């Protein structure tokens, strides 16, 4: 069964697996991507890059300013900030990427169903989107993490469950337009079932949205995690995360101690900025003609 007549690539900015590899590979390097790869390496190689244990206190040397021994100084318990930052990279990237994947995955499934089946399913799901959009996300998140037990997994779940709506709307409208196209119509005429059409004809044409959304959402999720941890409502305090470090740095501020705030803060900004830049790059390359905005 060949459908030679329709060139999908020409009609929509669809991508196949090869193109994703090319994009993430060497041929199109993006400055954002370079920084992200460096951060991933830092996270993976953390134990080999520092001699200090990130959680072991050394009460004899608290609040050391940056020096040769401790390039980023030490905190109030004498823990080495540099190694805490390295291990914090692990936590932040892990939470950010997982939460983004969860949010986009959930949003994509809901958007697909809503756009493909239409009718009552669509209107119920879209009312759900409107409803979850109403409470400010920070407040909803704070309520969720307070009421349920708090660990790394529930934080990921809470961020994922409060950020799927934008993807759902985007995927829904895109699905609506794709299912009107002739190739879907011909698949229906040939007797293809819903599941087959969704999987073979619609999802591949939406992959580029997923790639862009996951990237931009990761940046947002890292910000959200750091915000929750900063308030003391996020990652449990025994794990070094950038937000936790800033939470502890709060009391140092009034004593004019700047390094405990500046370095974790810089890590957040550098990470989020480079992920956002990568997202913008991907947007330009995968969807050059799309006017639609990727709001989070």
């Amino acid at each position, binding site marked *: 069964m060949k459908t030679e007549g329709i060139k999908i690539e020409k009609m929509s900015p669809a991508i196949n697996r090869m193109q994703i590899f090319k994009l993430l590979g060497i041929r199109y390097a993006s400055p954002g991507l370079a920084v992200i790869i460096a951060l991933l390496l830092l996270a993976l190689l953390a134990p080999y890059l520092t001699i200090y244990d990130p959680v072991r206190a050394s009460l004899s040397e608290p609040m050391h300013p940056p020096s040769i021994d401790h390039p980023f100084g030490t905190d109030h318990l004498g823990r080495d900030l540099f190694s805490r930052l390295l291990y914090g990279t692990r936590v932040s990237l892990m939470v950010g990427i997982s939460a983004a994947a969860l949010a986009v995955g959930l949003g994509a499934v809901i958007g697909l169903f809503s756009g493909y089946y239409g009718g009552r399913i669509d209107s119920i799901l879209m*009312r759900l989107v409107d409803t979850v*959009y109403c409470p400010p996300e920070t407040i909803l998140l704070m309520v969720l993490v307070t009421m*349920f037990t708090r660990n790394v997994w529930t934080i990921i779940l809470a961020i994922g469950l409060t950020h799927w709506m934008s993807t759902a709307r985007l995927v829904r409208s895109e699905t609506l337009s794709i299912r009107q196209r002739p190739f879907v119509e011909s698949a229906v005429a040939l007797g293809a079932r819903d599941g087959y059409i969704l999987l073979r004809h619609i999802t591949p044409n939406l992959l580029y949205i997923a790639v862009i959304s996951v990237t931009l959402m990761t940046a947002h999720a890292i910000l959200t995690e750091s915000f929750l941890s900063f308030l003391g409502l996020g990652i449990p305090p025994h794990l070094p995360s950038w937000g936790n470090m*800033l939470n502890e740095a709060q009391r140092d501020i009034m004593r004019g101690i700047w390094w405990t705030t500046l370095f974790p803060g810089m890590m957040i900004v550098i990470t989020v900025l480079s992920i956002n830049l990568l997202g913008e790059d991907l947007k330009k390359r995968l969807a050059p003609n799309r006017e639609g905005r990727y709001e989070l």
Partner: protein
Amino acid sequence: MDRSLASYALRRVLQIPPLLLGISLLAFFIFYLSPVNPTIAYLGLITVQKMTPEDLAKVEEQLGLDKPVQVRYLVWLERIVQGDWGYSHIKKRPVLDVILERFPATLLLTVTGYSMSALLGVLLGLLSAIKAGSRIDVALNGLNYVIYSTPTFLVALLAMLVFAVWLGWLPSSRMVSVNTPTSDWPLLLDRIHHLILPASVLAISHMAVFYTYIRSSLLEAMQEDYILTARAKGLQESRVILRHAFRNSLLPLITQIGLSLPLLIGGSVVVESIFAWPGIGKLTYDAALRADYMLLMGLVLFTSLLVILGNLLADIAYVLADPRVKYG
């Protein structure tokens, strides 16, 4: 007000009840599905620990905990509609009273911060669009990206470090000084003095939305035919930009303001917590830290209502401001 506008407003208002129902279901089921013990939520942990098992059983019966879930929801909903939002343990007062008492402080902070943010963002966006492609534009765009990627709390911490600790120009917390001035003018000055830092932090971290928006919509408007016409008439370039392009690109900003209301309330949680500003953001933080569940539920409901109301007002204001919009 003409009839079509009135009917549009009415239709728009009619969209709200299903949303309210949705939010009440959302709030109730978060609470219902969570492992939180309802008796503790209603009475507080300390009170429950002091009670005898018989009293506890009596309370559970009164709360209707033995009833099926749909009955519990309806009972709860009835109380919410009647204005009984439960009792806050950390404040020792009814939830709705506490929220309403704290709300004006938040309103003051967010309205000030947001106005500053809009002013700053629109002016810089305008500058960037006029000088598109220039060094100023590139620098502003880059700065905008960095701010967009910086968490609000970091801006707040750094601002506090520089202006309150190092330079000592501005107070770092609270809404008024410890020795509050009694006469009118010094009191007002004291308020403003305390407002500057938190409002500026809010303004800077929300500026990016306005900047990006104005810049791109202005650049788009400059491609329109009516700009060509205006130039062909021989109008000055400044007049072409300000009177023709800029005014048109301001309109959709109304919707933008409505849409970013939830973000703004979120931002106020951070800023209020850091600067100990006694508004509903700080209240949410305190309630979360000390597990005051009834207060948290009340805050979810209250802020959701604010967002719904804000979007409604923005939609109606947009139709009022732009006569070309077809109602509906």
